[in-house]
């Protein structure tokens, strides 16, 4: 069972040995070497295949593909009439004649399929190129922004940040959120959340953008995406000696309602808080009827450095409560949002590569490489035709196609 969990967990961290964790493995030297080898092999195969194809084309040669279907039939009429009919029927099936020789017709189809195969492999190269560009230039991190408390767009404001050196040089720009709204279903699950993002750069008019899940904003070449949210109560905590030990906006978890978070107190100790956004009492305990901040009440436990709970109580929004000489004031409830800030120049290569890849595969499937060789000679009944059709893939299905061609030719011919 444990082995199964490790195997299924490929991609998660913690459970599997480091070399099996894809994120770690993907940045290892052997993985990069393998990717480089793959790129080299792809380039070599593309070059070789295109050169061979062009050479055959120049020589007017039709390559005989892997699987063959052979049929002989007799067509009524002399050579020239039969040839004309043959050319017509072959062209109607999308074959293009290649080269000219008396008594022989060579034709092939599926050039688009070949182009598709090349496009697909070139698309892979673009994707790998995109991944390389991303790993060298990507910037990604998260800002936690409480409503009404903009943050400077600089490394120190981020809670997580990859590629800090790639952030634009600090120029006093501040980003913030306001008018956050969250919508819930009748059963209480979150269905949507949105906010107005504000961007203030000294000397430039402020900018505002509506952001929601799946709909980010762009500023200074960076993408800002709403990722998560929670409650941000403005709190003040004053101890029994009148010292303010906390005067801040706490960032509290959203789910499940009533979950406990800890806020550090100045001079040591913590204020443990649980927020009930839609407070009610049930079974002698505080509960929240929903996630809507209809009647926010904060339960707190004041824990001194030694771990002793010095005061415990509940305080509603806009009120303050004093227990054991310690006062907790819950001024106002706002939201905070986790905003992912990202810039990834490799993305465009990835998109281009994906388009090439998907279109290329589509062409490859729709136009398989097939070729045809027909030789004819006069006979007593008219013209005897020997058809050799060849295909690279799916021979049994191709046989049916060739039979349709033979049937079309036989409409005015007799089978041999």
């Amino acid at each position, binding site marked *: 069972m444990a082995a*199964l*969990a490790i*195997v*299924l*967990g*490929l*991609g*998660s961290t913690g459970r599997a040995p480091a070399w099996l*964790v*894809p*994120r770690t493995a*993907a940045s290892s030297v052997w993985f990069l070497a393998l990717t480089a080898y793959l790129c080299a092999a792809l380039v070599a195969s593309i070059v070789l295949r295109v050169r061979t194809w062009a050479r055959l084309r120049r020589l007017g040669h039709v390559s005989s593909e*892997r699987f063959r279907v052979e049929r002989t039939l007799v067509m009524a009429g002399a050579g020239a009439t039969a040839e004309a009919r043959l050319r017509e029927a072959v062209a109607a099936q999308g074959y293009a004649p290649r080269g000219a020789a008396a008594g022989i017709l060579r034709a092939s189809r599926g050039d688009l399929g070949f182009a598709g195969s090349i496009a697909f492999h070139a698309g892979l190269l673009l994707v790998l190129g995109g*991944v390389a560009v*991303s790993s060298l230039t*990507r910037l*990604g991190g998260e800002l936690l922004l409480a409503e009404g408390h903009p943050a400077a767009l600089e490394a120190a404001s981020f809670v997580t940040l990859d590629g800090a050196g790639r952030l634009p040089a600090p120029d006093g720009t501040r980003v913030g959120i306001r008018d956050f709204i969250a919508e819930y*279903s009748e*059963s209480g*699950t*979150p*269905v*949507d*959340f949105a906010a107005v993002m504000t961007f203030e750069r000294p000397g430039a008019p402020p900018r505002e953008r509506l952001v929601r*899940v*799946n*709909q*980010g904003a762009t500023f200074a070449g960076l*993408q800002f*995406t709403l*990722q*998560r*949210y929670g409650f941000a109560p403005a709190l003040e905590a004053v101890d029994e000696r009148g010292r303010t030990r906390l005067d801040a906006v706490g960032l509290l978890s*959203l*789910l499940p309602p009533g979950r406990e978070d800890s806020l550090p107190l100045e001079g040591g100790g913590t204020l443990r808080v649980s927020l009930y956004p839609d407070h009610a009492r049930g079974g002698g305990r505080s509960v929240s009827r929903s996630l809507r901040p209809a009647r926010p009440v904060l339960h707190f436990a004041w824990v001194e450095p030694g771990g002793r709970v010095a005061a415990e109580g509940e305080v509603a929004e806009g009120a303050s409560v004093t227990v054991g000489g310690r006062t907790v004031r819950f001024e106002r409830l706002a939201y905070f949002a986790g905003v*992912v*800030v*990202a810039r*990834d120049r490799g*993305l465009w290569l*990835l*998109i281009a590569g*994906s388009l090439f*890849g*998907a279109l290329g*595969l*589509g062409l*490859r*499937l729709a136009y398989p490489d097939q070729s045809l060789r027909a030789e004819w000679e006069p006979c007593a009944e008219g013209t005897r035709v020997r058809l050799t059709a060849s295909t*690279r*893939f*799916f*021979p*049994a*299905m191709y*046989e049916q196609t060739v039979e349709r061609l033979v049937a079309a030719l036989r409409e005015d011919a007799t089978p041999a």
Partner: protein
Amino acid sequence: MNAVEGALLWAAVALYAASFVLALVGSIFHAGRAGRAGAAALPSALALHLLAGVARWIATGHAPVMDAYENSLTGSWFVGVIFLALAWRIPAARAATPAVAAAVLLMLGNGLMMPARLVPLEPPFRSGWLVVHVTFAWLAFGSYVVAAIVGGLYLWHVRRAEADARRAGLLDDASGRLVAFGFAADTVMIASGAIWAHGLWGRYWAWDPIETWSLVSWLIYGVNLHLRFTLGWRGRRAAWLAVGSVVGIVVTFFGIQFVSDVHTELL
């Protein structure tokens, strides 16, 4: 699930079971009438299955693509429909009806063991990419599963002395074509998922278990196609390949739910 969806779905399950039993009896005892009845029950079961999905769609206000139950409901339907399309074009594949009915029943059984609560679309799913990503995911999954079943049918068919070479050839080609089509759909699925992820999470790849396994199975099928197309593998070897490759995809679509339900949690 609501009453309408439940009634339709259980009726579909009963028809799938009937299709499985009749088609199996038909092929084991060469009973033509039973076989035909089994083959006819399958489209009817799929129609009821579709109506159950539509009933759920109406009740939740979104396509059934969100949790493990909905994914089993939708994914199993795609398997059945892809098989029907194949059987219409290549009658030789109709002999796979019992296996397809069994696969659909197994997938539905997996879904029915999960909670089937009617819940609205969660925030991350509210994107136009959802339809593209999920449709291609199920097209890929369905094609791979049917390719494996047809590969199995090929292996079963060529065991017999009186095997018809042309029929065997068509089954072989059908399996290969399904793998190729599934691979194209898989490519679109992964690409659209990555682009969506960039807009949603600010990164297009994070090596989470679903992403990793999707890549692993895509690579497995890439190797599969090279063996078929580049090295010309056919017949038994290619059929075994189609049967064996499906393991990766089953892990991706169903095994991962034991580790994590969605890619990466939002909120």
